[in-house]
């Protein structure tokens, strides 16, 4: 490596606008052969857009991409692939009903080739998975794989095509800290064999651990760059957010009585995601319970049970000490449960409905908004307007289709919709995913305020930092099982990571029996 560095990739003054939003504003940097460059930035800073341009999935309004000195034609994924660029997306692009091998070989051979070349492909996959420690069976159906295994398939997909530049978009978001270490080991092997890597993340410690160099984006602009050996986390955080990051200060308060209890609740699996396995949990007044865990480990089942979308197949749910008989979304809302869903675009709102229609979605049948089957639009509109004013929803008016709002404003409307009903219990499922820093602070502030006035909050998040900053009590969920309760600052991230990896549960069981 004593030779002069070879420039593997260069991005020159890339600009991309979506309507009025400038997602990338003249962004440019380069990556050398064998180098790991981290692209650091908050959600919405423009990292993913930039990589989609590099990979030919979007066309830049201006600017060029060059790989080993050759400029790529814009908007052509095929050219990017052929030039040796491979990308592992944050949301995997795998066909679940096909096998691992089928997913990996898709599109590699000429479509009109009459031979499938399955034997050689299989040998190459096995070879690669040994070389890079990516254990996965070529014949397994993707639907049967865990999230970590799916990521390995995605990386194998890129390696199979002999990529020279590998882009990883938030690869650790779905991994336990231990799995992250395995991933990093694989990446180091890849660098040794001469690959260049772009590592997209907003997690500072990971960036410091794996990258040679960091490029920071903020609001679509390139703020700066540094070699990791010349900088530290604080300096990077300041660059990333514009200010030093400060974790919210949470004063401990004494929790009140249990408002909602789950007792030995078991639910069936949801597709490949596990259901709950004999889970007991009490949500107490004036307390935020954080549910940490790797995505797809039973969080959806937990949210469904608390939110009224699913009844336990065994065990029971009790409200204020009374066992619930009839449990559906409507009774959950009537029981004073505020539900902030995981996906605000698909489950939280109806995009073609206006703000008014979305505001009354959960309670249009109540006397506040309708009488004997006829809606009172005047009252409904007034309600929507009051949310708009009180929660600072930026929009042209209550009759705007909600799809025209930004994610943050959409989330504020949902917050207003559920908080205005004066809920006793709040279910917040990934409440800040994809929001910018201002909206994140706003949502966190509202959750803390609700706690302070005596609401019980269940915060489900895949972001361990978020869970640790806000929660009075933390549970880890893994494989549908729930860990014991850990108090604030009782556990380190690494200790929680062990639980997230599914270890520790059986010891507890033995211990208890």
């Amino acid at each position: 490596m004593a030779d002069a560095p070879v420039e593997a990739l260069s991005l020159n003054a890339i600009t991309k606008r979506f309507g009025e939003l400038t997602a990338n504003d003249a962004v440019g940097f380069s990556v050398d052969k064998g180098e790991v460059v981290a692209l650091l930035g908050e959600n919405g800073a423009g990292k993913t857009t930039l990589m989609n341009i590099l990979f030919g999935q979007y066309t830049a309004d201006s600017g060029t991409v060059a790989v080993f000195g050759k400029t790529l034609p814009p908007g052509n994924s095929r050219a990017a692939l052929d030039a040796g660029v491979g990308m592992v997306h944050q949301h995997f692009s795998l066909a679940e009903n096909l096998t691992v091998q089928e997913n990996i070989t898709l599109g590699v051979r000429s479509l009109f080739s009459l031979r499938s070349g399955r034997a050689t492909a299989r040998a190459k996959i096995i070879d690669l998975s040994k070389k890079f420690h990516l254990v996965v069976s070529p014949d397994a159906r993707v639907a049967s794989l865990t999230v970590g295994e799916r990521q390995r398939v995605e990386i194998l997909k890129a390696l199979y095509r002999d990529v020279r530049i590998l882009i990883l978009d938030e690869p650790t978001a779905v991994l336990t800290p231990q799995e992250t270490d395995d991933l990093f080991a694989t990446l180091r092997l890849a660098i040794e064999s001469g690959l260049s890597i772009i590592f997209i993340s907003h997690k500072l410690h990971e960036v410091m651990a794996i990258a040679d160099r960091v490029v920071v984006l903020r609001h679509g602009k390139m703020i700066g760059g540094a070699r990791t050996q010349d900088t530290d986390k604080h300096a990077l955080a300041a660059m990333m957010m514009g200010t030093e990051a400060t974790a919210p200060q949470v004063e401990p308060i004494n929790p009140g009585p249990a408002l909602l209890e789950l007792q030995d609740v078991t639910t069936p699996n949801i597709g490949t995601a596990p259901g709950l396995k004999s889970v007991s949990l009490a949500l107490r007044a004036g307390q935020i319970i954080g549910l940490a865990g790797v995505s797809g480990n039973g969080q959806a089942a937990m949210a469904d049970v608390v939110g009224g979308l699913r009844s336990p197949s065994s065990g029971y749910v009790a409200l204020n000490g009374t066992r619930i008989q009839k449990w559906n979304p409507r009774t959950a809302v009537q029981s004073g449960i505020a539900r902030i869903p995981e996906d605000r675009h698909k489950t939280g709102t109806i995009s073609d409905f206006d703000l008014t229609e979305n505001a009354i979605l959960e309670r249009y049948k109540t006397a506040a908004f309708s009488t004997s089957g006829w809606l009172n639009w005047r009252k409904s509109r007034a309600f929507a307007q009051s949310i708009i004013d009180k929660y600072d929803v930026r929009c042209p008016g209550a009759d705007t289709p909600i799809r025209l709002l930004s994610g943050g404003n959409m989330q504020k409307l949902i917050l207003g919709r559920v908080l205005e009903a004066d809920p006793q219990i709040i279910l917040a499922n990934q409440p800040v995913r994809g929001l910018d820093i201002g909206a994140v602070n706003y949502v966190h502030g509202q959750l803390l305020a609700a706690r302070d006035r005596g609401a019980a909050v269940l915060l489900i998040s895949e972001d361990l930092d978020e869970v640790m900053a806000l929660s009075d009590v933390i549970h880890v969920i893994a494989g549908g099982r729930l860990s014991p309760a850990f108090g604030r600052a009782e556990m380190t991230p690494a200790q929680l990571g062990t639980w997230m990896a599914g270890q520790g549960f059986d010891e507890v069981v033995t211990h208890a029996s």
Partner: protein
Amino acid sequence: MRLEPIKNPSLARNLLPPALALGATVVIASLLAMAAGANPFSVFGLILRGAFGSQFALLETLNRATPLIFTGLAAAVAFRAKFWNIGAEAQLYAGALLTVMLGTGVLPWPSIALLPTLVVFSILAGAFVLLIPALLKTRFGVDEVVTTLLFNFIFLLFISMLLEGPLKDPMGMGWPKSARLIDEARLPRLVDGLRLHWGFALAILSAFVIWIIQTRSTLGYEMRAVGLNKQAAAFAGIPVNLVLVKTALLSGGLAALAGFSEVAGVKASLTLDLSPGFGYTGIIVAMLALLHPLGVVVAALFVAGIFVGADSMSRAAGVPTYLADIMLAAALLLMVLAIMLTRFRVVRD
């Protein structure tokens, strides 16, 4: 290419694509008329005159529009909730069936009691026919498009069986035809001396009622929510399957009124050629109306005009009447494309 949503479409963006779609339809029809050796201008002139050119023509168009308003409403209501009822034809015959079963003398009541009874039982019959596909969809997840289509064939054979069996008119000279309605079961004319019956008024009234239900009632709100986003509707606590079943009942009932109105207002008895595809044409009517209940009335008049006009044009110019069907199919396809283009921009990569 790629589609990009337009946030605030301009007036031109809203009007130009639909206008171009209609223009293209006319061009296609002209070319086809020329292929048949006719002058396109005279063909369109004959269609217009045949549809609206005289009092007789206009009344004929209104009469033809009546069942189309009902079947158009049936489709519009169902499609709004994304329930694909393609079986309006079967439901229409169900309404007609109940009308002749109860209106040929079984109930010897005066009009004032008999007609409302026939309306109610027709609606129930149509609702029942669509209930089966609706339950198959909500219980077993069976696609309603195929089941409702297949039901059209099944139900028509069922009617044919009845018309050659228990319902056969003994005076019918061997034709598969039911007995005639008693006079009390006939819909009177709206205005004495003009060939337009009360079914037309009932159709207009139905359109208004549906419009009010859709915009003002919780059921209408639920139906729209389910149609736009089932997942979000279910999350919010809307009973999606129940709403789909209610939608189906309403849609089936509306389609059945077309059958009632044709028998009680026009034909007086049930035959196998009662409907020349009113059920299927209702889908076009609903789509051209963008599923708006009041738009259905306008679209039904337009579609009926083309059919009535094409009939008389065909007699005069010798161009096959199927020109009307082609025009409507082309208008349907071009219009859905045009509506999409008012909301999305085509972007090149």
